[in-house]
């Protein structure tokens, strides 16, 4: 289903702490997203004026959950702002405050406005050939896995976090197995260790992963070795989210792909390796870099 051709103004319905994260909920007049899709978000007031007078551009966030049905709009001082719609539902986003944009979004209160463009991008595809779904997440990367688990009949969910505070984010999913870097919650270790053990028992699986690049690269590598299909939800800096700026490219076997329209979910087989955002070791061409040209 195509996205509405215009950013629309959502009304924040809740902003709840979930461990070290915030869950931002907003009434969404649009249709339901498919798991793995994202929205470009910006606060409708005071977007800008933060650190270095940013944010200026909208920011990309995965839909973490979507509740269908007429959404309730809380009382708001500013009636003009409140935004009802017969259809639609409530979109949930999981936020980690890492800079001016996420910081501003984490401040939003019920009744306040949220600009959203979406749902955007290509999401997860269902497992084929009777394979079992294994969802592997790290940190805030668990967001798209929650909505994917909602859509699947059954899935194994393996999550890794920095520490106990962040591990509370696991409540976004149902009966997830959790590991932490410091062992302060669940087993101490890496989520990829859980994944390997699980795949030893359940090789007939499809892996769905989202998290930091090193984790995704480890997932990609170990699935490649075992010949297990994997779908990876990647991140990259985005300006537009709808294919306009060519800024969000990631290197694939067939050259650069715009993550916002060809992703954010990519088949692991398309990737030679998952790069750190900000790493630029790869250049598929011998052409000279065009300094200063758009």
């Amino acid at each position, binding site marked *: 289903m195509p996205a*509405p051709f215009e950013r629309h103004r959502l009304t924040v319905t809740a902003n709840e702490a979930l461990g070290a994260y915030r869950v931002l909920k907003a009434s969404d007049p649009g249709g339901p997203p498919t798991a793995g899709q994202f929205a470009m978000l910006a606060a409708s007031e005071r977007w800008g004026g933060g650190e270095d007078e940013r944010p200026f551009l*909208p920011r990309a966030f995965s839909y973490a959950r979507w509740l269908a049905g007429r959404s309730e709009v809380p009382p708001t001082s500013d009636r003009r702002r409140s935004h009802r719609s017969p259809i639609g539902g409530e979109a949930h986003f999981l936020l980690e405050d890492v800079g001016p944009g996420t910081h501003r979004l984490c401040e939003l209160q019920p009744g306040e406005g949220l600009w959203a*463009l979406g749902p955007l991008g290509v999401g997860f595809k269902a497992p084929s050939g009777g394979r079992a779904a294994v969802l592997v997440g790290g940190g805030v990367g668990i967001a798209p896995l929650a909505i994917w688990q909602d859509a699947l009949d059954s899935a194994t969910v393996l999550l890794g976090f920095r520490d106990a505070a962040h591990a509370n984010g696991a409540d976004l999913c149902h009966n997830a197995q959790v590991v932490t870097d410091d062992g302060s919650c669940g087993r101490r270790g890496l989520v990829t260790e859980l994944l390997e053990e699980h795949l030893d028992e359940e090789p007939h699986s499809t892996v769905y992963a989202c998290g930091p690049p090193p984790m995704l690269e480890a997932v990609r590598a170990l699935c490649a070795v075992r010949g297990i299909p994997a779908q990876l939800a990647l991140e990259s800096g985005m*300006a537009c989210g*709808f294919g*306009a*700026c060519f800024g969000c490219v990631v290197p694939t076997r067939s050259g650069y792909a715009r993550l916002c329209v060809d992703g954010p979910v990519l088949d692991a087989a398309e990737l030679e390796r998952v790069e750190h955002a900000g790493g630029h070791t790869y250049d598929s061409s011998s052409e000279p*870099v065009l300094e200063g040209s*758009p």
Partner: protein
Amino acid sequence: MSIDFCGIALAHPLVNGSGTFDAIAARRVFGQALDERFPFAAFVSKTITLRPRTGNPPPRLWEAQAGMINSIGLPNKGLERYMAEDLPELARLPAPLIVNVMGSSAQEIAQLLRACDARTEIAAIELNVSCPNVKTGLDIGADPQQLATVLGQVRPTSSKPLIVKLTPNCADVAACAVAAESAGADAVSLINTLRAYAPAPPHTPGAPPGPWLGGGTGGLSGPAIRPVALAQVAAVAARVAVPVVGMGGIQTARHARQFLDAGATLVAVGTESFRDPLAAGRIVREFSQASAC
């Protein structure tokens, strides 16, 4: 507010800045609404070159104060595939098509113009002269003499309206515009992005600082450059008789009006479309409300 631009009838004065709106990708994302609510009076496609380009290595984006820096590096599928694959799709848009091309030599540019001249789907050609000269490293558009020479050589190869997109990274943009006009340009457009640098955010202490962008330097766009854009558009409009397409940081109808008041015939929306794909539609709406201007 219908407008005649180089003999092309336009519904209003708002177009897009080349490379800031991909109508084909947008049609994939937004479906038929893209065509039904198409906000631009004419569509300017992203710069194409003779041979395909993959563009610069990522990261390609940096957010600046009231703007952004990009180092995209003009990725494109090259003239041949553009003509074969994209042109038919773009011809379906409810607006005239302006094809933006760039070449690093008069020969290359002539080839591009000749190819465009042959296609009826194309209403006009925009020539991006912000291309670095292989010898000097400067934009070929930065020197009036050099610009006039190149244009003089390529102008005869096409009978379509030729818009020269000037580079803002020069000492005297008005002199470049005059040179372009005298060499047969039917219009000029400006400003392109300002050469800019984005340092990598400080990581582990001791790590060597360097550029954030894969391309090293990039181009600054958005509201931060609007005052510079207005100065260059005003300077150019005062010196040339051909129509001027003004752009640089336009976010509202009031901003667009400032460019028209400075002498522009058309205005283009670029970076603002990233913040809202229908920003140009909003601006056109604001236009029709006196209040806006």
